[in-house]
């Protein structure tokens, strides 16, 4: 509870846990939906054991009276149906000092890792209560209990359960009974600080994951062709896109591998249809050669990389910001392209939409760096702001006989040359990954090479990216520069710092390449020193800032590898120390 008084909390963090098959994830989702419809903001992430199915599971939720983008340093409530292997989540579910650990009487003491913090312990006969209801399940008893402890309205809970199980009446009734039983059992517990009243109604808010938001952004941007190969944690984005694309007149092709997906997307885009693929690190690595082809042939294409822990297979289910290097520099030769990163679940929509727009108008590939946290987190958010206008490719008109021959790669001032779309008469050409002259004919002349390199750089460098390139917040002579999913906890940390009288600016870069050194320098005007916050081992953002921005301020680094998200308190502690140093 961020509210230390005993009255009501503006933010509560709850973890539900238990062994596989106990329905923990389902209960978590119901709790999230109940909170949402009761008018709260909320965020849910998940974790599970290594088993494909039936391993231990945890649903981690934060419910608040204000938008939330990260988990807190300490959980207020851990509620488990059993303790089988739940200790494995020790690092992920740190209990706050004032926290409560709630379990089943019959399961014995909770693992020490949770109680070491001094959290209170409570136990109830969950399974026994469930057994008392034909078809009743402990997870529903637990859910009823937790809802009651949090002070969530009974009808909101009821509705959330009914919505999920509505189609299975055989399951619905016992579940509702168990829910009610849990709710009444709550009375026997020590009072728990309930949530403060909700900040208005749910109307106008969305319940969405980052992966869904990115998918929707792609469609809003005009994408109508997607080819992809399944990979965690990008699969859900594809699974959302597949039927959605179909309904808006597009198509998703499941490719044989990532080499095929990127090339299918390139082929479709060459045909004039805005195209996208989504993957994660290992898949992105396989796409690099063909991304270079998109650069050289000037074919628009968007690749969404939902980053997970690397290197290699790494930890597929955990988040890391370790693909910045490969996204910026993974192409062979000099191959300017776009790299963008959403910095919140909702922002995944606008940023992906913007990526499509930019790729289309600049005729080059755009990589969108989302991550497992943003992608799989499910959040109640305010309706996202409208994104950039949809794709506008500069298209060559049909030519008649006698017109000058079409120059696909004409050396225009802007660097952008109108692109002929197959089917258009008089402007046929061959797109080529070989270096070429203006008409596209292969050339090994130094002058042609230099001219085309200049053109391809120019079109990116000279474009006006407007205000979206970064989110700039706050004032002061200190700044923290970050990107992606570190933004949420940073924002919260800086709000806390401000409360404590420490004013620090937040800079969250949305456009990572081409680098915007002048803009960033302007944003840092008056700043004495800056801290670079990122989630990876080697300081990839720090290196990027050093190599491509020539900033006038000294940079310090705050980073840790993936597998464990930053929280606001942790950042705050570092910022305070650094500000004093």
């Amino acid at each position, binding site marked *: 509870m961020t509210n230390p008084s005993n009255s009501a909390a503006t933010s509560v963090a709850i973890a539900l846990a238990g062994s596989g098959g106990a329905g923990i994830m389902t209960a978590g989702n119901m709790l999230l939906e109940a909170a*949402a*419809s009761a008018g709260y903001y909320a965020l849910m992430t998940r974790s599970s054991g290594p088993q494909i199915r039936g391993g231990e599971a945890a649903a981690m939720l934060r419910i608040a009276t204000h938008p939330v983008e990260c988990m807190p340093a300490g959980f207020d409530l851990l509620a488990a149906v059993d303790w089988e292997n739940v200790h494995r989540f020790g690092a992920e579910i740190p209990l706050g000092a004032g926290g409560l650990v709630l379990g089943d009487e019959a399961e014995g003491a909770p693992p020490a890792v949770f109680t070491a913090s001094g959290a209170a312990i409570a136990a109830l006969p969950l399974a026994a209560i469930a057994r008392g209801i034909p078809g009743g399940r402990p997870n529903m008893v637990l859910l009823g209990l937790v809802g009651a402890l949090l002070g969530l309205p009974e009808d909101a809970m009821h509705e959330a359960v009914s919505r999920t199980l509505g189609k299975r009446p055989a399951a619905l009734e016992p579940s509702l009974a168990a829910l009610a039983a849990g709710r009444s059992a709550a009375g026997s517990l020590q009072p728990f600080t309930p949530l403060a009243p909700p900040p208005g109604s*749910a109307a*106008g*808010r*969305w*319940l969405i994951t980052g992966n*869904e938001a990115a998918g*929707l952004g792609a*469609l*809003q941007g005009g994408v*109508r*062709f997607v080819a992809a190969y399944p990979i965690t944690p990008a699969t859900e984005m594809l699974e959302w896109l597949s039927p*959605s694309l*179909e*309904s*808006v*007149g*597009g*198509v998703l*092709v499941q*490719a*044989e*591998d990532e*080499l*095929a*997906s990127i*090339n*299918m*997307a*390139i*082929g*479709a*885009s*060459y*045909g*004039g*249809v805005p195209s996208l693929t989504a993957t994660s690190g290992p898949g992105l690595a396989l796409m690099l*050669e*063909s991304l*270079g*082809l998109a650069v050289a*042939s000037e074919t628009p294409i968007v690749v969404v990389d939902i980053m997970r822990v690397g290197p290699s297979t790494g930890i597929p289910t955990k988040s890391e910001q370790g693909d910045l290097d490969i996204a910026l520099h993974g192409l062979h030769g000099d191959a300017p392209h776009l790299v963008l990163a959403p910095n919140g679940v909702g922002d995944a929509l606008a940023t992906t939409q913007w990526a499509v727009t930019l790729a289309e108008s600049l005729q080059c590939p755009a990589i969108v760096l989302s991550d497992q946290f943003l992608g799989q987190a499910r959040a*109640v958010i305010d*309706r996202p702001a409208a994104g950039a206008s949809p794709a506008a490719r500069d298209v060559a008109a049909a030519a008649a006989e006698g017109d000058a021959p079409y120059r696909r790669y004409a050396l225009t001032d802007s660097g952008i040359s109108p692109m*002929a779309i*197959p*089917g*258009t*008469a008089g*402007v*046929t*050409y*061959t*797109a*080529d*990954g*070989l270096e070429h002259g203006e008409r*596209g*004919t292969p050339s090994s002349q130094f002058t042609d090479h230099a001219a085309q390199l200049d053109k391809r750089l120019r079109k990116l460098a000279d474009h006006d990216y407007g205000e979206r390139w970064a989110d700039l917040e706050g004032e002061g002579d200190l700044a923290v520069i970050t990107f992606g999913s570190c933004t949420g906890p940073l924002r919260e940390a800086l709000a806390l710092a401000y409360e404590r009288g420490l004013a620090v600016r937040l800079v969250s870069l949305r456009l990572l390449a081409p680098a915007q050194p002048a803009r960033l320098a302007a944003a840092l005007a008056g700043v004495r020193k800056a801290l670079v916050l990122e989630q990876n081992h080697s300081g990839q953002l720090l290196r990027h800032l050093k190599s491509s921005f020539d900033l006038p301020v000294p940079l310090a680094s705050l980073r840790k590898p993936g597998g464990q998200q930053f929280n606001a308190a942790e950042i705050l502690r570092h910022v305070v120390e650094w500000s004093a140093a």
Partner: protein
Amino acid sequence: MIDMTLTPAHYKSDVKPVWCPGCGDFGVLNALAKALAKLALRPEDVAVVSGIGCSSRIPAYTSAYGFHGVHGRALAVGTGLKVARPDLTVVVTGGDGDGYSIGGNHFLHACRRNVDLTYIVMDNRVYGMTKGQPSPTTEADWTSKLMPQGTGLGEIKPMAIALAAGANFIARGFTGDPNGLADLIVSAVEHPGFSFVEVLSPCVTFRPEQREWKKMVRGHALAPAADSVEAATRIFADDGMNLGVLYAGTRRPFAPPIGRAQRTPTDLERRFAL
């Protein structure tokens, strides 16, 4: 729309081929132009897609739309293009190295996926462009700098693989017979689904002995089987010199609907609204 008759010459561009005089690929270009003329397709409604290799230079020599991609990925590019733009006629072209070595997986899956496009492989049993290394169709005992003792490996049989992987139309042509080849290409383009045309196309520079192929091929030796078991028996016993159509199947092409919107993206937002 266009009234004038399109002759084969209309399908050639003004770009000069880099091919060695005598190279079989000239005959393929000629046959392709003839086939497109017979099909009376407008150049702008045709896209010729390729990877990298001598043979893969062909798109720029046609007056159609062309895409000269990276090594081995032509079928993927062609697939994306055709699925996104079903109105176009897509012809994917390339060499034995491009198609069967680095591109082998896309070959397998293009056969299986059965998108309505035509794949023409100019098989010279060598990597021409990189100066003469063995390809998957090279004879085991053919020696080269890289493999001074020969590969010691059996050649793959692309037509058998195409059949096993589900290609819907399978034929073999010879570049020395551009007219016969043009007919095969016409049939391949007209046949629904994935059509595979293997073309014996000599590399006179690295495999001059292939000049003899013209004496070895047997025209019209293959007759189309509609039954894959029958085709299999035939192709497993084949010596590679029989020309004609091996197989013409009836599998439904993969052509997911595109362009038929029932909703707008904004409609989809409703799914997330609370």
